[in-house]
């Protein structure tokens, strides 16, 4: 399995054991263990407040570790912060672009922080603006850019030092579908070039598309770990039957779906039946005299895993 440590294999790029972050008495990250191997795309999934950003900030060496062990690129963030950060690219959850500078200047000055020469910083800035399709906006101010353009600029900025490890905290939140696909494409190309990706997301399709391996976080802890496929196999059935009933009908469903599926999940707007044979379940539902407004059989997704593990839908 990729990323598993054993003798002879190279050290993981990120290695965490008992990693903990507390803000005062509040524990945001509670003794989590994980490893990220070189070249891998690794995801953190979890509902709001699960501790994803807190974890990412510790990996990015901008937030001190409260307890436990953390090694990034084989180094200790507590003592080697600047050396580690020199080899990281960071896309924070909240854009922190400089509104007083132009699009190009944002990249050039960032390159200077990494000690690039002015000429080299400018060369890379233009190449990256081309990469994220913002070259025609190079001399514009940042403020009037759309949200998606700002996000792309933030990603370009994170690449100015040609990082080995790219940390992306909700890289596509707030983007329209087209912009998201564009970004996935860019990230996929970076991965092909050997850049290791660590990302957080609320989007299941994003996780399925991009991540080789992921962990689900809930309430400061890791509750599951594996590849998207493994997680689906482990935590949910092959298929899901989605039933919608006329408004008000769901109250008297109590007990009437029992035994029809391995697990029944009642959501505000629909009922999910987890079963390996969706069609058979549809028939069984009708045999019990139930008349759903609609019945849809689909393959299980990470979304279902998420619901199962955290009791919540992803985007709440």
């Amino acid at each position, binding site marked *: 399995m990729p990323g598993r440590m054993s003798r002879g294999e190279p050290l993981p790029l990120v290695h965490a054991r008992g990693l903990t972050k507390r803000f005062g008495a509040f524990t945001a990250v509670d003794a989590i263990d994980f490893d990220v191997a070189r070249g891998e795309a690794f995801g953190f999934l979890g509902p709001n407040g699960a501790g994803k950003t807190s974890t990412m900030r510790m990996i990015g060496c901008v937030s001190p570790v409260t307890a436990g062990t953390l090694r990034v690129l084989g180094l200790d963030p507590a003592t080697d912060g600047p*050396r580690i950060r020199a080899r990281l690219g*960071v896309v924070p959850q909240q854009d922190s672009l400089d509104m007083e*500078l132009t699009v190009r*200047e944002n990249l050039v*000055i*960032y390159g*200077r*922080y990494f*000690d690039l020469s002015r000429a080299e910083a400018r060369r890379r800035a233009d190449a990256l603006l081309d990469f994220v399709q913002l070259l025609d906006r190079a001399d514009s101010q940042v403020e009037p850019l759309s949200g998606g353009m700002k996000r792309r600029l933030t990603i370009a900025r994170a690449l100015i030092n040609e990082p080995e490890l790219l940390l992306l905290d909700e890289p596509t939140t707030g983007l329209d579908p087209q912009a998201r696909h564009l970004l996935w494409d860019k990230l996929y190309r970076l991965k092909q070039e050997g850049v290791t990706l660590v990302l957080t997301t609320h989007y299941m399709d994003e996780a399925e598309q991009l991540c080789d391996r992921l962990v689900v976080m809930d309430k400061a802890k890791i509750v599951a770990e594996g590849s998207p496929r493994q997680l689906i196999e482990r935590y949910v059935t092959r298929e899901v039957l989605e039933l919608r009933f006329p408004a008000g009908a769901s109250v008297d469903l109590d007990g009437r779906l029992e035994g029809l599926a391995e697990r029944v999940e009642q959501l505000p707007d629909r009922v999910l039946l987890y079963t390996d044979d969706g069609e058979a379940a549809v028939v069984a539902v009708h045999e019990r005299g139930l008349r759903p407004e609609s019945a849809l059989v689909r393959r299980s997704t990470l979304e279902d895993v998420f619901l199962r593990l955290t009791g919540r839908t992803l985007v709440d």
Partner: protein
Amino acid sequence: MGRTLRVVEYCARVYRRSWRGTLFVTFLSPVLFLGAMGFGLGGFVDRSDGLPGGVPYAAFLAPGLLAAQGMQTAAFESTYPIMGRIVWDRVYAAMLATPIGVRDIVLGQLAWIGFRLVLVTSVFFGVMVAFGLARSPIAVLGIGAATLTGLAFAAPIMAFTATQRNDQGFNAIFRFGITPLFLFSGTFFPVEQLPTLLQPIAWLTPTYHGVALARDLALGAATLPAALVHLAVLVGVTAAGLAAAFVTFRRALVV
């Protein structure tokens, strides 16, 4: 060192986009103040008893204003722009994701303010010379005195700014700090004119020492022991402010 310089470079890059506007104000303020207070009001003062030693009021006032200009420029530069970079635009947070560290940010930012102070007080000094108000060959050292006066404010105010989450506290700084210091620390009249009880308070302020140093230099009245005391106070306050800023910036930026 290199990383600190990158922070200075950042500040310079931002300034490059706005220097034209500020330059005009930089010229205008000394011309207006020296014209109105120095020569207008000064005409009255000189016609009555005048100042001890027969120094024209304008020549007395100008170096005081020079130091006060350092203070005021520093107070502005270490409040709103710094708050913007900590809280509003999160520019420092973006820097901290690179090899730049908190100390680099504090030192680089303060060095930049020092550079701005040299610029502003040099312009002021140029206006003084044009008005014939620099009466000693070493008057030019007043630029250094005024810059140091500014730093003695910039460092502690930067430290304060990093403890704030919005700009409401700044009003108090200007209203109850900078304005009274501007009026009562020897800029417009010798502190000996203050009620006896208040005089020791004036001596404790960096403004008093900056004004006295710049004035002694401009009037050719500087003595080494007095100058050293003034310098020690200004450097001491700057160093204490810097130490405090290291702590408060870290608290604000590293969580």
